[in-house]
């Protein structure tokens, strides 16, 4: 799978919305946000996450948003229970952050982005 095509392929297959990094090759951060339906809480979480990422990981991250109502079978792979859950796939170790990501300080701690 060539870079660039992968995300598009996955989107078709799994129905993920993928936000590509602005600069290729630097996507050392791979994040996945699980939501269940386009709720207000989900929208808030996405917004919070995008804001943090743009500020701290600009151009270095890849973010997938997975809607479990559309792809319930995907919940098993990452052992998702709580909604919303943000999974840091890369860099290792894997981390899970639950909640609407409104507490920015804690999100940064959870993503190991502190201190800067």
């Amino acid at each position: 799978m060539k870079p660039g095509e992968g995300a598009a392929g996955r989107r078709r297959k799994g129905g993920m919305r993928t936000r590509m990094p602005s600069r290729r090759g630097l996507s050392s951060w791979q994040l996945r946000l699980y939501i269940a339906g386009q709720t207000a809480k989900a929208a808030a979480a996405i917004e919070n996450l995008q804001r943090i990422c743009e500020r701290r990981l600009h151009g270095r991250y890849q973010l997938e948003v997975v809607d479990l109502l559309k792809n319930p079978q995907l919940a098993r792979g990452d052992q998702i229970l709580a909604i919303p859950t943000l999974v840091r796939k890369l860099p290792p170790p894997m981390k899970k952050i639950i909640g609407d990501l409104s507490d920015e300080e804690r999100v940064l701690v959870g993503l190991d982005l502190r201190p800067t």
Partner: protein
Amino acid sequence: MANSSGRSSQRRSRSDPQPRCSIEKAWSGIRGLDEITGGGLPRGRPTLVCGGPGCGKTLFAMEFLVRGAAEHREPGVFMSFEETEAELAANVASLGFQVERLVAQKRIAIDYVRVERAEILETGEFNLEGLFVRLQHAVESVGARRVVLDTVESLFAGLPSPEVLRSELRRLFRWLKDRNLTTVITGEKGEGSLTRYGLEEYVSDCVLFLDHRIIDQISTRRLRVVKYRGSTHGTNEYPFLIDEGGISVLPITSLALEGAASSERVSTGLPRLDEMLGGKGFYRGTTNLVSGTAGSGKTSIATAMALDVCREGKRCLYFAFEESASQIQRNMRSIGIDLEPCLRAGSLRISSLRPSVFGLEMHLVAMHRAVEAFEPELVVVDPVSNLMNAGTLLDTRSLLTRLIDYLKVRGITTLFTSLTPGGNSLEETEVGVSSLVDTWLLLEVVRSGGERNRLLSIIKSRGMRHSNQAVEFRLSDRGFGFLDTYLGQGGVLSGSARVTQEAEDRAASAALDQELVRREALRDSHRRAFEARLSALRDEFEAKDAELVMEMEEVRGERDRTTRARTEMARSRQAFGASQAPAGKRTRRKEDGA
């Protein structure tokens, strides 16, 4: 009972002893539980199964699911919070559950939910929608009617904010109910509460409590229905066991005594004893007890009957809790009972086990298994009193009740022996089974005059005319010898006392015989004396009589001569009227002389 739902229980008559209920029930598939709960778990509602570690919660849940899928066409979802799919399948495979096959057939779905506290950080509001999504996905994938959540409480350890969890669990149970899913939720026992996180607050329909305790180093598992909304249920603690066939709850009272009573008879193998029992022995399919103190001959009587059954070409299963098979063989040979041919022919099986080898429930199962495999005509348990070592009095009694019921329903004749401790009343068995048995033989050892003698009597024998007499029996190398006890002026005697008394009786009787002979002789001589005197008297009389006759002849001759002479004189003197007055006087005198 073959009916499976609450609907059918509504049709039952009022006199039916089974629990009555108005809610629909789903067969749990767990042996015995459906009898206690009157049909199973509440259909479409959650049931909480709680207990300490190792009490069998997960197994209970798995059996509920597997049996539902395999036997009742109710597919199920197992949501495991503790063990992975592979672990679960492997753990229950030893119990004969083919989980992997059912999964492959899409009749069961297993979802392993792992929650690792260390990996999770909370950063704001959240809910457990992910769990719902997974559950729904699993339910839809197999068309599930049943769900297991094992152990949902792990979430409390794995996720922050218990308040959110509580409200989400409440929502989850509501969700399950709305989808009409029959659910088993397991929960770990807490300190002073049924579950550590108070799950019982949310599950209000049915709560079962499993207990695994060790009493005197022997483990016993018990199940109790803590609550069952909308249904009556058995409230006792029911022993249950886990074996190769899964869980078996043993409701003490569930087996109704419905077996048809046979009027066929089974010989005890001792003709004299048969004679005492209405001439024919025990009834087939009854429970019979031989009780007695140590050394009174219980095992001997039991083996005699076993041998007789085997000789008739039937099978006997002998549970020996005191002696090994070879020991019994050797001991019985000493009284002329050779078990070797029966053992070799396979008609007799001696199952020798120490009672303490495992708990009572396992004993019961082992016995059930052995009976089912061997299909005996006679089951001997020697002695039942030894089972006391494996449990409490109450447990033993309930075990025996269940064993008796089980054998009775199958029409198997049973012979129990029971050791009566020396100090107690003889007519009291340690296990208190006497009220459960149909025929009770009592063996006594009577000590008198420096010896012990065995007496056998029948305390009770239901449904037959039986002897009220005690008989003495002796064991020798020729087998059993029955002797009537001495019943006479000296009371009831046995042994040497009986022999002595009998000798005395014989002597007394001989003396009387002699007296009789003597009197007879006396009478004889008396008669002879009388007859002698009689004959002498007759002789005397006859002699006198003859003399008198002679004298009379002489007188008559004299008279004739005188008359003749007077007539001649008158004729010669031509006297006057000779025929007048003087003649009349003469006539009278003559008459006097005659």
